[in-house]
Structures are given as structure tokens and as C-alpha cells.
């Protein structure tokens, strides 16, 4: 009966005071009814009804009073039970003090009350210690006090609301940071010890502070707004602010705000805030964001690097694939593991036709057996260089020069080869052609040398063999004249004269021929020749001629040294100087020999200048031809071999001979010869 009563009726009836007032009022009403009945003397039925009503009313009042008392007892028991539980968990205050004098005092007083209650609660009825509510309030007040101080009390429960009064028990209660703030000033009213510890101020100090003061200046406006909103809405959850405690530490807190109103919803009494230190969490999330940013950045970089790598790969891939050489790799068994495009296109194979096949497939069939052996050698050496033949897809055989080096695994065994082949067919062909040509040249050369030698021999032999009959001719012609001259008439003598002259001419020709053939033969014994000495000999030899013609030979002092054959050089300058004197109509014939600057490096240029008859420019090349004369025998004797011989001598020395001349203005013959080579002595 009391359960539904408790549940439905009691709340409807209201507070205890209201209930008793109602009862009293009802009682008064019923008394008034009875008095009226007695006065008016109603019927027996009415009297009985009235008495019944009065009786019923008294029962009702009694039950109400009993249930109230029971519920009070129940509540007291509940409180007692909970308090007992707390105290059991905690231990009796007398044996365990919190260290806080005030708290201990409160707890002691609470304990007294509780023990009284405890004792009382074992009875069915409670001895009223005072007026029920006040007892409760007093008890609660003490308890709250005590438990708040100890941190055990969770004042989310309304002071008035008997409904959801929750006294938090256990560890959670000791570490939670909770407070009560004044709704207008936001000053602390109450603060849990954990919060006080966290903030570093005592409740006394906090009471002088506004909650906003601990908040970071940048967050304050937001906080103010949010708390105002909370006030309006009744609650707010998950508010996060940066705060600074008394120690100067910056922390981040998460606040859950609940608005508490007074009894009977009589306006806001305080804000209850449950605070959680989320510094770590905030830091963690900040860190996470930072890490995320970093990761994003790293990701971007990675992507960029990846792109570069791709490009690089493409570039190198292109370099490898399209290089102007035949690249390939063999695996440890001699199979082709990869090859580049150039190789494929050169040989005319598709990639699938070659990859995986043995290298021997590239060789002409008759060369294949050798491969095993060669490959074994390569495996031992780690490298190979070999010239051989390959067979193209179309059967054509080409010459290749193959080089390969082995790439080793960490354990020293061969992983694969780095090989390159070069098509040397063209080069081979070229080389073969070259060799062939060389050989032919050699043969031709030998032939030429032989012919030259033959020719020299011939001219030599002929000249010598001719000399003998020539001698006979000339000598006996002379004898004829001297011995039988008187027996010849003038005609006879004339005839003999012709014979003599002809013979002489023939002799000169033959001698010139001989000289010419000798002129080309420069001795192998070339050395440093002093031109001073050479010209000295020439001058001496021509001494007689000079005296008889009144000529002059002027040799420059300190002529240079040249590299050559001394005898031939004497012959050369003899010819040139004597020519200069011979082809000369001047009253004072003069030939001068001096050096002039040379245009060619390593060469010396000498000029033999005369004041003779000169040479018409149109004949400048002709004068050097063998036996080509510009004058009749009557004008000047000579076979016309002199300059040809000079030319031959100069050429044999690797030099040059040329003339500058005008008719009747003398001639300049330029001789260019090599300087002596370094380090050689004369």
C-alpha cells in the first residue's frame, strides 16, 4: 500500500508540511460536520454515516502519519546505509583522519549523528531526534560538508530534491575535479580538493577568483559566452579552455557545466562544473594535427620524389634501351635475361624470342658447342672480351665484339652479366679492305722499288759500259788526228772533228746521266752539314774559273747548318754557282750566296743570286727538266742536266728548289733544306 502511495500520491500531496496542513484542515471540517449533526439532531443513518466518515478520516490520517514516519525512517536508513557504506569504505573517522582539522571535526559530528541514527535504524521506528526534515537537513548538511571536504561528495544532487540524490563513492570521487560557481560572478563557491590541487589555490583563494580568471585571455570571451549559454540552456558539455594555474602551468581543461536551481525551481543557485584535465589530450590532438601536417608534407615530398624517380627511370630506361650499342644481360646459366631495343632491332628479333633463351642461340650453329666452355671460363674470371660471330634473325652472320662483366651476389656467386656487343662487321670489312689495299700497296711498292733499283742499275751499268767504247772513240779519234792528221785533207780532218765532238758530247751525256742517277741516291748517313764548308769547297773548286773570267763569288758569312748528304750538297751548290757564272755576259760576273728567312718551320732557305742573263718566266719550269736547254750549243755548252740534277738532289733531301728571274736581270735560285734535327751531331 505504501509503494504506490509513495510513488503517486505523496508527490501529488506535496511536502510534509502541506500534507499535515491538509490533514488538519480535513479534521476541522469533519469536526464541524459532527457538531452540526449533534446540533441539528439528524437521523440515525446520517449519524452512523457521519461517524463512519469521521472514523475513516482518522484512519486515513493515521496511515498517512505512519507512512510518513516510515518513509522518513526509510530515507534515514538509506542515508545511514550510504553513509555507513562510505564510512565503512573509508574507515571510521576516529581511526583515520583526513589531516584536515575542519573536515575531521565535521566528520566526527557526522559520525555521532550517524551512530545515533544507526542505532535508531535498527528499530522499526525512529525516535525522532527533532523535527524530521531538520534532522535530515542537518545530517545531510554535516555529511555534505564532510564529504565535500573529503572530496567524497558529489553535489550534483540537489539539496532539496530527494529524488536523485547521488553520493558518489569510491576512487572516482577522490580524483574528480568538480566545483560550484556563482552564476553571476562566476566565483568559486565550492571546489573539490582535486581541483584545488590542480589549480593550486585553496578554496578560500578561489572564492575570490572568477572562473574566467584562470582561463587564457584569448579564450575568455568565448568562455563567457558559452557559460552564459549554459546558464540559459541549463547545461553545456565538452567546453574546452586553456587555463593557467597558480604555478604558471598552462593546461587545457574540458568543462561539463550543469545549472543548479534552488528548491521548487526558485532560480539558479550555482553552476556545477565538472572539469577534466585534457592537457595531454589537447596536446595529443595538437601533436596529431602536426603529425598529420607533417605526414601530408612528407607524402607530398614522397610523391614528388616518386615522380622524379619515375622520370629518372624513364630517362635511364631510354638510355639503356636505345643506346647505340647492343646491351644485354645473361643470368648465371647463360640465358639471356634482358636486352635492349637496339639489340633486338639490330638482330631482327622480338623480345619474347630472346629472353630466357640461351646465349648460344645467338651464335651460328657450328659455334654453339664452344659456348659452354667459354661461359665456364667467364664464370671463373668474372669478365670476358671476345670477338665472334652472331647470327641474325634472317640468318645473316655478323662479326661482333662482345664484352661482359659479372655482377656478383653478396655471397660471391654470379647474379647476372653486364654485356655489350658491337657490330664490327663493317669495321672488319673495312679492315680487311684496308689490309688488302695495304698489301697491294706493299706489292706495288716493292715492285716500284725493284724497278727503280733496276733502272738505277741499268743506267749505271749502261753508263759504265758505254764509257768504254766512248773512250775508245775519243782516244783513237785523237790518235788519228795526231798520228795521221798530216795524211788527211781538210775534209778528212773535219770528219774526224765531228766524230771527236760527237764522242765528247756523248760522254758528257753519259756522265750527266750517271750524275743524275747518283743524285737521287742520298746516303743513309745523313748528318749535320755546315754550308760554310760546302760553299768553301765550291769556291775553291771554281777558283781557276773565277780567276780566268774575273768573276766574283760572294759567300755570306755564317751560313746555317742543314741536314743532309755533304757530297750531294757540294754537287748541288757547285752546279748552281757554276751556272751563275756560266750563263753570264756581265763584265764583272758575280754570284752571291746568302740565307733568307724561311717561310716553313724547320727549314732553311738559301738563295744563289747571279747577275747573269736571266730566265724568261715562261721557261721557269722548263729549266729544271732533264736535257732541256734554252740555248744552242754555240751559245752555251752543256747538256742541260745541271738543274735537273740539282732538283733531284734537293728533292732527295726533302727540300725545295725554285727560281725567280727575269730576262737580262739575273736570277735567284732558292734552295730550301731541312734544319738539323735535334740532338744529332755532325
Amino acid at each position, binding site marked *: 500500500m505504501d509503494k504506490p502511495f509513495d510513488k503517486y500520491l505523496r508527490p501529488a500531496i506535496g511536502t510534509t508540511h502541506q500534507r499535515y496542513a491538509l490533514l488538519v484542515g480535513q479534521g476541522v471540517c469533519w469536526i464541524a460536520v459532527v457538531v452540526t449533526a449533534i446540533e441539528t439532531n439528524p437521523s440515525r443513518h446520517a449519524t452512523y454515516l457521519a461517524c463512519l466518515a469521521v472514523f475513516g478520516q482518522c484512519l486515513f490520517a493515521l496511515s498517512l502519519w505512519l507512512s510518513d514516519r516510515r518513509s522518513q525512517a526509510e530515507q534515514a536508513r538509506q542515508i545511514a546505509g550510504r553513509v555507513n557504506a562510505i564510512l565503512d569504505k573509508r574507515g571510521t573517522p576516529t581511526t583515520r583522519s583526513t589531516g584536515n582539522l575542519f573536515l575531521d571535526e565535521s566528520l566526527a559530528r557526522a559520525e555521532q549523528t550517524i551512530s545515533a541514527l544507526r542505532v535508531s535504524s535498527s528499530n522499526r521506528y525512529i525516535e525522532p531526534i527533532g523535527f524530521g526534515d531538520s534532522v535530515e537537513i542537518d545530517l545531510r548538511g554535516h555529511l555534505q560538508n564532510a564529504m565535500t571536504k573529503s572530496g567524497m561528495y558529489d553535489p550534483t544532487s540537489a539539496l532539496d530534491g530527494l529524488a536523485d540524490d547521488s553520493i558518489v563513492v569510491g576512487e572516482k570521487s577522490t580524483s574528480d575535479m568538480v566545483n560550484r560557481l556563482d552564476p553571476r560572478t562566476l566565483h568559486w563557491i565550492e571546489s573539490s580538493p582535486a581541483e584545488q590541487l590542480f589549480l593550486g589555490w585553496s578554496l578560500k583563494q578561489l572564492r575570490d577568483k572568477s572562473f574566467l580568471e584562470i582561463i587564457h585571455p584569448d579564450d575568455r570571451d568565448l568562455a563567457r559566452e558559452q557559460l552564459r549559454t549554459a546558464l540559459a540552456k541549463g547545461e553545456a558539455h565538452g567546453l574546452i579552455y586553456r587555463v593557467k594555474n597558480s604555478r604558471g602551468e598552462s593546461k587545457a581543461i574540458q568543462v561539463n557545466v550543469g545549472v543548479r536551481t534552488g528548491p521548487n525551481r526558485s532560480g539558479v543557485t550555482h553552476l556545477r562544473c565538472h572539469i577534466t584535465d585534457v592537457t595531454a589530450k589537447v596536446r595529443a590532438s595538437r601533436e596529431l594535427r602536426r603529425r598529420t601536417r607533417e605526414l601530408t608534407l612528407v607524402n607530398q615530398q614522397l610523391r614528388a620524389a616518386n615522380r622524379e624517380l619515375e622520370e629518372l627511370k624513364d630517362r635511364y630506361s631510354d638510355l639503356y634501351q636505345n643506346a647505340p650499342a647492343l646491351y644485354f644481360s645473361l643470368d648465371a646459366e647463360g640465358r639471356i635475361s634482358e636486352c635492349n631495343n637496339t639489340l633486338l632491332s639490330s638482330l631482327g628479333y622480338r623480345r619474347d624470342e630472346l629472353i630466357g633463351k640461351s646465349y648460344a642461340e645467338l651464335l651460328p650453329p657450328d659455334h654453339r658447342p664452344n659456348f659452354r666452355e667459354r661461359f665456364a671460363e667467364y664464370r671463373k674470371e668474372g669478365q670476358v672480351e671476345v670477338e665472334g660471330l652472331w647470327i641474325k634473325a634472317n640468318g645473316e652472320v655478323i662479326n661482333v665484339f662482345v664484352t661482359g662483366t659479372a655482377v656478383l651476389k653478396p655471397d660471391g656467386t654470379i647474379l647476372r652479366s653486364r654485356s655489350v656487343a658491337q657490330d664490327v662487321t663493317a669495321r672488319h670489312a673495312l679492315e680487311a679492305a684496308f689490309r688488302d689495299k695495304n698489301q697491294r700497296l706493299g706489292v706495288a711498292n716493292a715492285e716500284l722499288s725493284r724497278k727503280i733499283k733496276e733502272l738505277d742499275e741499268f743506267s*749505271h751499268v749502261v753508263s*759504265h*759500259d758505254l*764509257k*768504254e767504247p*766512248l*773512250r*775508245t772513240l*775519243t*782516244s*783513237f779519234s*785523237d*790518235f788519228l788526228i795526231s798520228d795521221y792528221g798530216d795524211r788527211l785533207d781538210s775534209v778528212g780532218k773535219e770528219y774526224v772533228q765531228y766524230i771527236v765532238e760527237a764522242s765528247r758530247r756523248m*760522254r758528257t751525256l753519259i*756522265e750527266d746521266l750517271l750524275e743524275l742517277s747518283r743524285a737521287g741516291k742520298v746516303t743513309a748517313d745523313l748528318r749535320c752539314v755546315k754550308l760554310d764548308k760546302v760553299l768553301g769547297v765550291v769556291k775553291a773548286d771554281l777558283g781557276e774559273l773565277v780567276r780566268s773570267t774575273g768573276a766574283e763569288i760572294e759567300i755570306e758569312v755564317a751560313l746555317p747548318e742543314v741536314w743532309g748528304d755533304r757530297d750531294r750538297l757540294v754537287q748541288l751548290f757547285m752546279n748552281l754557282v757554276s751556272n751563275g757564272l756560266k750563263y753570264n755576259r756581265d763584265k764583272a760576273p758575280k754570284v752571291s750566296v746568302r740565307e733568307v728567312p724561311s717561310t716553313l718551320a724547320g727549314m732553311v732557305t738559301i738563295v744563289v743570286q747571279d747577275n747573269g742573263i736571266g730566265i724568261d718566266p715562261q721557261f721557269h719550269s722548263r729549266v729544271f727538266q732533264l736535257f732541256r736547254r734554252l740555248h744552242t750549243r754555240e751559245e752555251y755548252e752543256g747538256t742541260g742536266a745541271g738543274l735537273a740534277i740539282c732538283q733531284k738532289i734537293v728533292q732527295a733531301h726533302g727540300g725545295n728548289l725554285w727560281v725567280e728571274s727575269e730576262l737580262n736581270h739575273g736570277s735567284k735560285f732558292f734552295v730550301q733544306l731541312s734544319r738539323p734535327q735535334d740532338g744529332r751531331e755532325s
Partner: protein
Amino acid sequence: MSEEFHILLVEDSPTDVKILERALREAGVHHRLTVIHDGSHALEFLANVRDSETFDQEVPDLILLDLNLPGLDGGQVLAGIKSDVYLRSIPVVVLTTSRREDDVAMMYATGANTFIEKPSEYPRYCDLVATLELYWREVAVPPPRRRPKS
């Protein structure tokens, strides 16, 4: 001992022989000329001279040797002469047309006393002959004519 200057001429060309003879005559050289046209005959002749009793009288004072000989050539003749212990002392003048350096070197190496190129003109022949006589007869001290011991 004869006052004659005994010259042995080894020469195959008759005209050259005639020229030399004439030259000797015209140079006024008091001489005795032995002419042999053949190389092997020359060696034979010399061998005979060497072995004969009249070595002192027979041995030539000078040998004029042409190189262009039929059969045995001048070089071989020279070698033959110069390898013989008794004959090698006889002065040998190689008188020939060729002036080839190889020939010259070879002849001197084989032991020729002099190498002379035959003059192409007769007058010079006379000079040459006179010079030769002058040199080998007057200027140089000739080798003694000593008969080889048998």
C-alpha cells in the same frame, strides 16, 4: 835487277790496252808491260812467277787491274792476289770505269792499294800514267823483290 818498271796489266779491252801502251810511251816511262786479258790467266801467271827461279826478275812492280773481266772478275783476281803470302806485297792499282761506292769500298777492303777511275780523255791518261810511275817508282819505297823460300 832491271831498271824497267814492270807493269802487269790485266785488261780485256784491246783498245784500252792500246791507249795505255801509247800513254806509257808518250809519257816516256821506261817500262815493261805484260798484258793478260783474263782473270784466271792472270792468277796463273802470277803463281808461275811466284814459283819460278827467276822470281826476282819476273815479279811485276805494279799490277793494273780492271774490274770488268770475263770469267773471273777483278774482285776475285784481287782477292786471289792479296791472299797469297808472296804475291800480296805487289801493289795493285784498280783501274776501272766504275766509280761505284760499293766497288770502291769492296776493293779497298780486299786490299787494293789504290782505286783509280779510268780517265775518259786520252791526255789525262798520260798524266795518270806518269803520276803512277812517279809515285810507285820514285816516291814510294817499293817492296823488296824477294824470292819466296822454297
